[in-house]
Protein backbone atom coordinates (compact mmCIF):
# COMPACT_ATOMS: atom_id res chain seq x y z
CA UNK A 1 0.00 0.00 0.00
CA UNK A 2 2.88 2.39 0.75
CA UNK A 3 4.25 1.71 -2.70
CA UNK A 4 0.83 2.39 -4.24
CA UNK A 5 0.51 5.72 -2.39
CA UNK A 6 4.04 6.70 -3.46
CA UNK A 7 3.21 5.81 -7.06
CA UNK A 8 0.12 8.04 -6.97
CA UNK A 9 2.18 10.93 -5.59
CA UNK A 10 4.75 10.37 -8.34
CA UNK A 11 2.16 10.34 -11.11
CA UNK A 12 0.51 13.46 -9.71
CA UNK A 13 3.86 15.23 -9.77
CA UNK A 14 4.47 15.68 -6.05
CA UNK A 15 7.73 13.68 -5.94
CA UNK A 16 10.52 13.13 -8.46
CA UNK A 17 10.98 9.39 -8.21
CA UNK A 18 10.10 6.26 -6.30
CA UNK A 19 12.58 3.44 -5.76
CA UNK A 20 12.60 0.27 -3.74
CA UNK A 21 15.75 -0.41 -1.78
CA UNK A 22 17.83 -1.15 1.23
CA UNK A 23 18.10 0.92 4.34
CA UNK A 24 21.47 2.06 2.90
CA UNK A 25 20.59 2.92 -0.70
CA UNK A 26 18.03 2.28 -3.44
CA UNK A 27 18.41 -1.02 -5.32
CA UNK A 28 20.60 -1.01 -8.40
CA UNK A 29 18.88 -4.05 -9.79
CA UNK A 30 15.56 -5.60 -8.87
CA UNK A 31 15.67 -7.58 -5.61
CA UNK A 32 12.51 -9.48 -4.65
CA UNK A 33 11.20 -9.12 -1.10
CA UNK A 34 11.78 -12.37 0.82
CA UNK A 35 11.34 -13.19 4.52
CA UNK A 36 15.16 -12.90 4.80
CA UNK A 37 15.54 -9.28 3.67
CA UNK A 38 12.06 -7.93 4.56
CA UNK A 39 13.38 -6.07 7.63
CA UNK A 40 15.84 -4.06 5.55
CA UNK A 41 13.36 -3.11 2.78
CA UNK A 42 12.76 0.64 2.36
CA UNK A 43 11.13 2.95 -0.15
CA UNK A 44 13.32 5.78 -1.43
CA UNK A 45 11.42 8.90 -2.57
CA UNK A 46 13.08 11.92 -4.18
CA UNK A 47 11.39 15.12 -3.04
CA UNK A 48 10.67 18.08 -5.31
CA UNK A 49 11.40 21.72 -4.61
CA UNK A 50 10.88 24.90 -6.65
CA UNK A 51 11.72 28.51 -5.80
CA UNK A 52 12.88 27.46 -2.33
CA UNK A 53 9.51 25.90 -1.62
CA UNK A 54 8.56 22.24 -1.43
CA UNK A 55 6.03 20.92 -3.93
CA UNK A 56 4.52 18.53 -1.39
CA UNK A 57 3.84 20.82 1.55
CA UNK A 58 1.32 18.92 3.62
CA UNK A 59 0.16 15.34 3.75
CA UNK A 60 -2.25 14.12 6.38
CA UNK A 61 -4.38 11.10 7.18
CA UNK A 62 -8.12 11.32 6.73
CA UNK A 63 -9.03 7.81 7.84
CA UNK A 64 -7.31 6.86 11.06
CA UNK A 65 -7.29 3.57 12.97
CA UNK A 66 -9.41 5.23 15.66
CA UNK A 67 -11.92 6.57 13.12
CA UNK A 68 -12.19 4.99 9.68
CA UNK A 69 -13.94 7.09 7.03
CA UNK A 70 -15.48 5.37 4.02
CA UNK A 71 -16.90 7.40 1.17
CA UNK A 72 -19.53 6.58 -1.42
CA UNK A 73 -19.10 8.00 -4.91
CA UNK A 74 -21.59 10.82 -4.14
CA UNK A 75 -19.62 11.86 -1.07
CA UNK A 76 -16.39 11.79 -3.07
CA UNK A 77 -17.98 14.01 -5.72
CA UNK A 78 -19.04 16.55 -3.10
CA UNK A 79 -15.58 16.55 -1.48
CA UNK A 80 -13.92 17.14 -4.83
CA UNK A 81 -16.32 19.92 -5.82
CA UNK A 82 -15.65 22.00 -2.71
CA UNK A 83 -18.32 20.89 -0.26
CA UNK A 84 -17.50 19.00 2.90
CA UNK A 85 -18.60 15.40 3.33
CA UNK A 86 -18.74 13.56 6.64
CA UNK A 87 -16.61 16.06 8.59
CA UNK A 88 -13.83 15.92 6.00
CA UNK A 89 -12.68 19.29 4.70
CA UNK A 90 -13.25 19.75 0.94
CA UNK A 91 -10.37 19.49 -1.52
CA UNK A 92 -8.64 22.78 -2.37
CA UNK A 93 -7.21 23.59 -5.81
CA UNK A 94 -4.02 21.59 -6.16
CA UNK A 95 -4.94 19.06 -3.49
CA UNK A 96 -5.43 15.34 -4.01
CA UNK A 97 -6.97 12.58 -1.95
CA UNK A 98 -6.04 8.90 -2.07
CA UNK A 99 -8.73 6.25 -1.70
CA UNK A 100 -8.39 2.54 -1.10
CA UNK A 101 -11.03 0.79 -3.22
CA UNK A 102 -11.80 -2.73 -4.37
CA UNK A 103 -9.84 -1.88 -7.54
CA UNK A 104 -6.79 -1.04 -5.44
CA UNK A 105 -5.35 2.19 -4.07
CA UNK A 106 -6.41 4.99 -6.42
CA UNK A 107 -6.53 8.76 -6.55
CA UNK A 108 -10.01 10.11 -5.80
CA UNK A 109 -10.72 11.17 -9.39
CA UNK A 110 -9.76 7.71 -10.73
CA UNK A 111 -11.97 6.08 -8.08
CA UNK A 112 -14.90 8.25 -9.20
CA UNK A 113 -14.25 7.33 -12.82
CA UNK A 114 -14.42 3.65 -11.89
CA UNK A 115 -17.54 4.33 -9.75
CA UNK A 116 -15.85 2.74 -6.74
CA UNK A 117 -16.25 3.93 -3.15
CA UNK A 118 -13.83 3.08 -0.42
CA UNK A 119 -11.68 4.04 2.52
CA UNK A 120 -10.29 7.56 2.15
CA UNK A 121 -6.69 7.13 3.21
CA UNK A 122 -5.04 10.54 3.06
CA UNK A 123 -4.85 13.95 1.43
CA UNK A 124 -1.79 15.67 -0.05
CA UNK A 125 -1.19 19.26 -1.15
Amino acid at each position, binding site marked *: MNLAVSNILYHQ*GFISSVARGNYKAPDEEYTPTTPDNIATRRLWLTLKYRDN*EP*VLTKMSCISKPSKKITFTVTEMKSMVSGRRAKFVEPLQPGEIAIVSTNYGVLEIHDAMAKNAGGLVLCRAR
Partner: protein
Amino acid sequence: MEDLDESQTPLTSWEMARLLKKSLVVKRVVNMNGKGKQPSMYALVVVGNENGLAGYGEGKDEEASRAVRKATNRAIKNLKYFERYDDRTVYMDIEKKFHATTVFLRSRPPGFGNRSNHIIHEICCCVGIHDISGKVIGSHNPMNVVKATFEALNHQRLPEDIAKMRGKKVLDVQHVYYGAQ
Protein backbone atom coordinates in the same frame (compact mmCIF):
# COMPACT_ATOMS: atom_id res chain seq x y z
CA MET B 1 5.85 65.71 9.32
CA GLU B 2 4.40 66.42 5.91
CA ASP B 3 2.07 64.46 3.71
CA LEU B 4 3.56 62.14 1.09
CA ASP B 5 4.97 63.71 -2.03
CA GLU B 6 4.54 62.36 -5.52
CA SER B 7 8.30 61.81 -5.58
CA GLN B 8 8.17 59.34 -2.69
CA THR B 9 5.59 56.93 -4.13
CA PRO B 10 4.79 55.70 -7.63
CA LEU B 11 1.21 56.91 -7.14
CA THR B 12 0.06 60.35 -8.19
CA SER B 13 -1.43 62.60 -5.48
CA TRP B 14 -4.83 62.18 -7.20
CA GLU B 15 -4.54 58.41 -6.84
CA MET B 16 -3.39 58.75 -3.24
CA ALA B 17 -6.42 60.86 -2.43
CA ARG B 18 -8.68 58.23 -4.03
CA LEU B 19 -7.32 55.38 -1.89
CA LEU B 20 -9.67 53.81 0.62
CA LYS B 21 -8.22 54.49 4.08
CA LYS B 22 -9.49 52.75 7.21
CA SER B 23 -8.03 53.40 10.65
CA LEU B 24 -8.58 50.08 12.39
CA VAL B 25 -6.82 50.64 15.71
CA VAL B 26 -6.52 53.97 17.52
CA LYS B 27 -5.49 53.69 21.13
CA ARG B 28 -3.80 55.57 23.88
CA VAL B 29 -0.39 54.16 24.79
CA VAL B 30 1.84 55.25 27.62
CA ASN B 31 5.60 55.38 27.92
CA MET B 32 6.84 55.24 31.51
CA ASN B 33 9.90 57.39 32.05
CA GLY B 34 11.87 58.77 34.95
CA LYS B 35 9.81 61.93 34.40
CA GLY B 36 6.55 59.97 34.77
CA LYS B 37 3.86 58.76 32.34
CA GLN B 38 4.15 60.09 28.78
CA PRO B 39 0.91 59.35 26.91
CA SER B 40 0.70 59.22 23.14
CA MET B 41 -1.76 57.95 20.53
CA TYR B 42 -1.10 54.88 18.38
CA ALA B 43 -2.88 54.31 15.09
CA LEU B 44 -2.97 51.37 12.68
CA VAL B 45 -4.33 52.31 9.28
CA VAL B 46 -5.11 50.04 6.33
CA VAL B 47 -5.04 51.58 2.89
CA GLY B 48 -6.13 50.13 -0.44
CA ASN B 49 -7.29 50.94 -3.94
CA GLU B 50 -10.02 48.24 -4.04
CA ASN B 51 -8.25 46.65 -6.99
CA GLY B 52 -5.64 44.41 -5.44
CA LEU B 53 -3.32 47.02 -3.91
CA ALA B 54 -3.32 47.26 -0.13
CA GLY B 55 -1.01 47.93 2.76
CA TYR B 56 -1.00 48.73 6.44
CA GLY B 57 0.97 51.24 8.51
CA GLU B 58 1.40 52.09 12.16
CA GLY B 59 2.02 55.53 13.57
CA LYS B 60 2.42 57.17 16.95
CA ASP B 61 2.09 60.81 17.92
CA GLU B 62 0.82 63.07 20.70
CA GLU B 63 -2.38 63.82 18.79
CA ALA B 64 -4.63 61.10 17.36
CA SER B 65 -5.15 62.86 14.02
CA ARG B 66 -1.40 63.25 13.46
CA ALA B 67 -0.80 59.61 14.44
CA VAL B 68 -3.42 58.53 11.89
CA ARG B 69 -1.73 60.67 9.24
CA LYS B 70 1.70 59.16 9.99
CA ALA B 71 0.19 55.68 9.82
CA THR B 72 -1.54 56.45 6.51
CA ASN B 73 1.72 57.66 4.98
CA ARG B 74 3.53 54.54 6.11
CA ALA B 75 0.68 52.40 4.77
CA ILE B 76 0.89 54.08 1.35
CA LYS B 77 4.62 53.40 1.31
CA ASN B 78 3.94 49.74 2.17
CA LEU B 79 1.39 49.13 -0.58
CA LYS B 80 1.54 45.61 -2.03
CA TYR B 81 -0.35 43.87 -4.82
CA PHE B 82 -2.40 40.81 -3.84
CA GLU B 83 -3.66 38.24 -6.32
CA ARG B 84 -7.39 37.65 -6.41
CA TYR B 85 -9.36 34.99 -8.24
CA ASP B 86 -11.80 36.61 -10.70
CA ASP B 87 -10.98 39.93 -8.99
CA ARG B 88 -13.48 39.08 -6.27
CA THR B 89 -12.18 36.36 -3.94
CA VAL B 90 -9.17 34.40 -2.74
CA TYR B 91 -7.87 31.48 -4.80
CA MET B 92 -8.05 28.86 -2.07
CA ASP B 93 -9.03 28.44 1.56
CA ILE B 94 -6.11 29.83 3.56
CA GLU B 95 -5.23 29.19 7.17
CA LYS B 96 -2.48 31.34 8.63
CA LYS B 97 -1.14 31.46 12.17
CA PHE B 98 0.55 34.66 13.27
CA HIS B 99 1.68 34.68 16.91
CA ALA B 100 -1.44 33.74 18.89
CA THR B 101 -3.88 34.63 16.11
CA THR B 102 -5.08 32.10 13.53
CA VAL B 103 -6.93 33.52 10.54
CA PHE B 104 -9.10 31.43 8.19
CA LEU B 105 -9.93 32.93 4.80
CA ARG B 106 -12.33 30.82 2.74
CA SER B 107 -13.06 31.46 -0.91
CA ARG B 108 -16.77 31.74 -1.67
CA PRO B 109 -18.96 31.92 -4.81
CA PRO B 110 -19.99 35.24 -6.39
CA GLY B 111 -22.75 37.07 -4.59
CA PHE B 112 -21.82 35.62 -1.21
CA GLY B 113 -20.53 38.90 0.17
CA ASN B 114 -17.85 39.83 2.65
CA ARG B 115 -18.82 37.88 5.77
CA SER B 116 -15.90 38.07 8.16
CA ASN B 117 -14.48 39.47 11.37
CA HIS B 118 -14.79 43.28 11.28
CA ILE B 119 -11.04 43.72 10.84
CA ILE B 120 -10.75 41.14 8.06
CA HIS B 121 -13.82 42.76 6.49
CA GLU B 122 -12.16 46.19 6.30
CA ILE B 123 -8.93 44.77 4.90
CA CYS B 124 -10.79 42.76 2.24
CA CYS B 125 -12.80 45.88 1.32
CA CYS B 126 -9.56 47.77 0.75
CA VAL B 127 -8.04 44.93 -1.31
CA GLY B 128 -11.21 44.54 -3.35
CA ILE B 129 -12.23 41.06 -2.23
CA HIS B 130 -16.01 40.92 -2.38
CA ASP B 131 -16.84 37.28 -1.62
CA ILE B 132 -15.05 35.77 1.33
CA SER B 133 -15.74 34.04 4.60
CA GLY B 134 -13.22 34.96 7.26
CA LYS B 135 -12.80 33.74 10.81
CA VAL B 136 -10.33 34.50 13.58
CA ILE B 137 -9.44 31.74 16.01
CA GLY B 138 -7.35 32.30 19.11
CA SER B 139 -6.30 35.80 20.02
CA HIS B 140 -8.45 38.59 18.54
CA ASN B 141 -5.82 41.28 19.18
CA PRO B 142 -6.60 43.76 16.34
CA MET B 143 -2.96 44.53 15.52
CA ASN B 144 -2.14 40.85 15.16
CA VAL B 145 -5.31 40.10 13.18
CA VAL B 146 -4.30 42.77 10.64
CA LYS B 147 -0.80 41.35 10.33
CA ALA B 148 -2.08 37.79 10.13
CA THR B 149 -4.52 38.65 7.33
CA PHE B 150 -1.83 40.41 5.32
CA GLU B 151 0.51 37.46 5.74
CA ALA B 152 -2.27 35.07 4.71
CA LEU B 153 -3.01 37.08 1.55
CA ASN B 154 0.71 37.30 0.85
CA HIS B 155 1.40 33.60 1.05
CA GLN B 156 -1.28 32.50 -1.38
CA ARG B 157 -0.33 29.67 -3.69
CA LEU B 158 -1.64 30.30 -7.18
CA PRO B 159 -3.05 27.33 -9.14
CA GLU B 160 -0.74 28.21 -12.06
CA ASP B 161 2.31 27.90 -9.80
CA ILE B 162 1.08 24.60 -8.37
CA ALA B 163 0.54 23.30 -11.92
CA LYS B 164 4.07 24.33 -12.91
CA MET B 165 5.57 22.66 -9.85
CA ARG B 166 3.66 19.44 -10.40
CA GLY B 167 4.03 19.44 -14.17
CA LYS B 168 0.31 19.55 -14.87
CA LYS B 169 -1.95 21.75 -17.00
CA VAL B 170 -4.46 24.10 -15.41
CA LEU B 171 -7.84 24.86 -16.87
CA ASP B 172 -10.41 27.10 -15.27
CA VAL B 173 -13.65 25.26 -16.01
CA GLN B 174 -15.81 28.21 -14.95
CA HIS B 175 -14.11 30.53 -17.44
CA VAL B 176 -13.71 28.21 -20.39
CA TYR B 177 -16.88 26.14 -20.36
CA TYR B 178 -19.41 28.19 -18.43
CA GLY B 179 -18.25 31.56 -19.73
CA ALA B 180 -17.76 33.19 -16.32
CA GLN B 181 -16.06 36.59 -16.32
